């Protein structure tokens, strides 16, 4: 069972992100980490490969130098090798460019499964995986939890607005894994040490056989403005009168 896990370096999820003059998120020099959403996919992949008894996990990421830290984290958790695509022409890449680049990199190797998170914690686009599946001609099971592979098929529970569906697809396939599907393992000290000697391949856009047309973004930030701040809010310390205050507000809103 060989699995490619899509990973992304994101600015520190608990921090306050900043925007540059071009309206793009500032990544250089920012604190960041492997997207927490990706750890669920990696954990699911580790469990599938462990259950299969053989196979390799390749981490794939696109991003500048800082993104190396995301790969290191994933390698420390147990992935076998990493691939990082980096190219100046990819700054400001939109979802289509990202999908083309990642699909081209995935297509260079043998794989049974491609695993990703459902969406990144910084961009929240949530469509890159579907586009990758289409570019590679793969069936996809998105928003999956409780994955299992048996008899050459992947089976999963897929979240829906009302609950979940049970879905299946033959492998090779692409799957996106939700938070809560698994509890990601914490890297051991041994894992952290071992990660340093695991191979990480660096690729450029031309290594992937893509043209500059393939990597031209189709979106441009025209304007960024501050949302109007909320007016008239009040914060109080709870005391005996608090329940009545809240009930008054509910009565004012005519809901009680």
């Amino acid at each position: 069972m060989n699995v490619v896990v899509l990973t992304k370096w994101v600015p520190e999820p608990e921090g306050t992100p900043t925007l540059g003059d071009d309206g793009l998120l500032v990544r250089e020099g920012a604190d960041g980490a492997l997207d927490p959403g990706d750890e669920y996919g990696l954990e699911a992949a580790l469990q599938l490969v462990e259950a299969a008894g053989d196979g390799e996990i390749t981490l794939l990421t696109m991003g500048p130098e800082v993104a190396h830290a995301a790969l290191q984290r994933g390698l420390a958790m147990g992935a076998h090798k990493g691939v990082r695509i980096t190219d100046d022409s990819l700054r400001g890449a939109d979802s289509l460019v990202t999908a083309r680049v990642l699909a081209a990199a995935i297509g260079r190797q043998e794989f049974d499964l491609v695993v990703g998170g459902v969406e990144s914690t910084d961009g929240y686009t949530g469509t890159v995986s579907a586009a990758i599946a289409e570019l590679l001609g793969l069936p996809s099971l998105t928003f999956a939890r409780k994955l299992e592979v048996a008899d050459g098929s992947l089976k999963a529970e897929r979240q829906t607005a009302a609950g979940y569906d049970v879905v299946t697809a033959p492998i090779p396939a692409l799957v996106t894994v939700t938070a809560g599907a698994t509890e990601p393992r914490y890297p051991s000290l041994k894992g952290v040490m071992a990660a340093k000697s695991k191979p990480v391949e660096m690729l450029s856009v031309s290594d992937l056989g893509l043209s500059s047309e393939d990597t031209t973004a189709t979106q441009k930030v025209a304007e960024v403005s501050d949302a109007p701040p909320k007016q008239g809010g009040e914060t109080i310390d709870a005391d005996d009168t608090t329940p009545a205050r809240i009930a008054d507000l509910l009565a004012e809103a005519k809901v009680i």
Partner: protein
Amino acid sequence: MKVWVWADVTPDGPAPSALELLTKARDLGDEVAAVALGPGAKASTDALGEHGAQTVYASDDEVFTKHLAQPAVHALAGLVEEHQPDLILFPASYDARDVAGRLQARTGSTLMANATDVLSPDKARTEILGGTKIVDVELKGPAPKLVLIRPQSFAAEPSGGTAEVVEVKADAPDDLKKAERLERHEEEASGPRLEDAKVVVAGGRGLGGPDAFEQLEKLAAAIGNAAVGASRAAVDAGWVPYSFQIGQTGKTVKPEVYICAGISGALQHMVGMKGAKRIVAITKDPDAPILKIADLGVVGDLFKVVPALTEEIEKRRAGS
């Protein structure tokens, strides 16, 4: 200008999102159409027409619900090639996200997600950083431009039209029927739907465990026409099902009153609830970001405030 709407449909009719998006589409284009695929499509065409669709490309074929995304993308891509729309609006539902992402790979079109408004056929608006910044984005590249729109971004208003119904062929090759839906399970809570409730009572990490959600259920029951929701932290911890989740990944709610307890106000959560008319936040953390957007912020012990509030409301109900 041809503007299309991807309409989610079920045998019960069109999803509210389809009617919201059609209402917006009328402002953007003079030729408005909806694409509705799967059981319930034909039965939805009256409502879609009333909300502005002049044409509905429809099929009731079960292949569109039995198999995930790919047969629908095959049909939609065929329609796009034939009719050349300029812009397609998609709801931010699970299935529509997959359809839009796959269609983009086929057409090489731009795709903007999480839009809160469409300003023109080549400019859309989104809010980032928990709604503190408004970003207008120019959409370039080949048509059709694809925009995924957050729920309840527009109010649905009928225009009183009728739609011509055009049958869509369900002729996807077997190769596109590999991903299959075997079973459906519903785990929706009792009471009103989160999206429809006048009052939403939501809990987060500060509840400390699943048992505390009973306190919120009791409060919701006392208020009446109230639904219980949760932040992603509470859902990820497994305290309540995913269907409770409010936020970027999850549901968008715009109730008359939003009461939250033990929620600090992660950006991811605030996007899903900041449209509430009134926000009451109960938290022990005086620095919680949620207090900045609350009409009434209460710093204190939710395990005291919530039951006391339930009692107060029950007392008022009994007195009236």
